[in-house]
């Protein structure tokens, strides 16, 4: 049984249908990349999965339980969510920001075990040296690692991330994705990431789900999904997909340019 499954999910903002009958599943240890053009419904889908938005139809199952029937605190103990541009506002130290991930388990005081879990998460993300710095003083890549560390101390089986690599340079993008892929494989986490960079997604995700106008266009291994036909239909661009590399790699072509030499 997959850890996370989304069945026939639909959602509408008032009279505008945003998601149409979305179905997919994520196994333990798997990284699923959600890709698609701006406004195709990736963020809405993630919010529906986490139960922040109530879907109009369908259901989200997590470890055999339907999210809708769970208390918010229970959801937070089972699934962590890293929103887009999280951590930009915080004035707290890295340690305290990560400690907040224990909120679903905390009543008031913080015990030794909570502190040790925070230290372990900081260690896992190589943030030990920065523990007592303010989050606002960190670089974008470091900040994103702090947010992932916070998701980690929530001790959930699934993590949802909304464009965790936006605003990062290629080195930091790879750093963040390495960490996530490593976490999925070592700890058996199910990770769902909304991404814009198709090549990054193809390199690090086990499977990709391509969305177009709120519906699933394609779903499968990066090799199967990342095709020239998909790029033409979903993104409206001409591109060449190179397949002689460890992962498929797409190179966009300017309209009117000759294809040769790519």
């Amino acid at each position: 049984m997959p850890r996370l499954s989304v069945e026939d999910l639909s959602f509408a903002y008032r009279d505008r249908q945003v998601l149409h009958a979305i179905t997919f599943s994520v196994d333990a240890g798997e990284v699923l990349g959600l890709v698609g053009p701006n406004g195709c419904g990736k963020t809405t889908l993630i919010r529906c999965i986490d139960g922040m938005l109530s879907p109009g139809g369908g259901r989200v199952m997590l470890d055999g339980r339907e999210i809708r029937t769970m208390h918010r605190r229970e959801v937070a103990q089972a699934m962590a969510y890293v929103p887009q541009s999280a951590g930009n506002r915080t004035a707290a130290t890295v340690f305290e920001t990560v400690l907040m991930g224990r909120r679903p388990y905390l009543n008031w005081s913080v015990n030794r075990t909570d502190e040790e879990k925070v230290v372990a998460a900081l260690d896992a993300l190589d943030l030990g040296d920065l523990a007592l710095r303010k989050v606002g003083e960190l670089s974008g890549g470091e900040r994103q690692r702090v947010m992932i560390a916070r998701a980690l101390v929530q001790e959930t089986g699934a993590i949802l991330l909304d464009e965790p690599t936006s605003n990062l340079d290629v080195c930091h993008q790879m750093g963040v994705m390495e960490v996530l892929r490593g976490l999925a494989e070592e700890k058996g986490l199910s990770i769902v990431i909304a991404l814009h960079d198709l090549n990054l997604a193809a390199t690090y995700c086990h499977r990709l789900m391509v969305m177009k106008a709120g519906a699933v266009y394609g779903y499968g291994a990066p090799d199967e999904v990342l095709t020239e036909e998909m790029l033409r239909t979903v993104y409206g661009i001409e591109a060449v997909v190179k397949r002689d590399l460890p992962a498929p790699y797409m190179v966009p072509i300017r309209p009117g340019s000759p294809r040769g030499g790519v």
Partner: protein
Amino acid sequence: MEQSVVIQEGYARLKKTRALFIGGLLAALLILLGVAVTLGSADFTVAESYLAILAGLFPGTFTAPEMAEIIVWDYRLHRVLFAVCAGFGLAVAGSVMQGILRNPLASPFTLGVASAATTGASIAIVLGAGVVGGEYLVIGNAFLFALLAALAIYGMARYRGIGSETMVLAGIAIMYLFSAVTSLLQYVGSAEQLRAVVFWTFGSVDKSTWPKLAIVSLVLACTIPYLLYRAWDLNALAEGDEVAAGLGVPVERSMVVFMMIASLITAVIICFTGTIGFIGLVAPHITRMAIGGDFRTLLPASGLVGALLLLGADSIARSVLAPQVLPVGIVTAFLGVPFFIYLFMHRRNA
């Protein structure tokens, strides 16, 4: 030393600093309380003032000059304690509003709550109309209008889906609306009424009494422990609605509850004092600069900073032109604004 030990020790140090800060504030407040009770035009010594307090608390064990006992218990002590409670409450309300709305400018003033209270008071003063009559006409109106403003902000925000930006925008709109109503009332009011309205907006703790102190302390005693109990939720909300939701906080319901509590605290204080500005805005900032934003310590510490600021300002207001008493709102602004700007600039340079 192992890195994990260094990190945990660092956090322990941070916790100790916070405890020391709160302890220091408490000590400073107790000292200032002692000094404030001795201030006034009646001519008796500091020792006599303290004896008067003790004589009131333990009749028979202590004796003080009768005049001193009357003046301290009937005029000074409740005023001093009222200033402490009002400062504490306004600062806590400001901390909560700034936190959940994630806006450093959020305070009972920028959100229209104080402006609505002024309108309520003006209606009572100029038109003589109110929901309760007699002694509580102005107070009752101020209180009701303050809560009305909070409800209106909530209603507007709810209509379009609640969000922190929406709430701040709604609050500013409400503030302008009520200010316009107050201006209109001032325009039609007589010179005497105009003077009363303007004086109300200065804010002061002159009109404190033991029953009023009891009401304010009761509201604080009922609300602040609850806010402290939910400090982690406030911490999460201060990071953003989505972060809070992801950490299991029921965002919309919590925002409403916290806003209503902050508004209730503000309303119950400013209906007795008039608009004492600045404390609710600045005390949380000063505290955050000193010990960071963890609401478990931010709430009590900023409350104490607010209490110190208001009591200090009131003590100055009573002594600087004695026997004349300046409205405390003027003093808080005169002293507090330069201090706040200094702190802010100092911190930026650091």
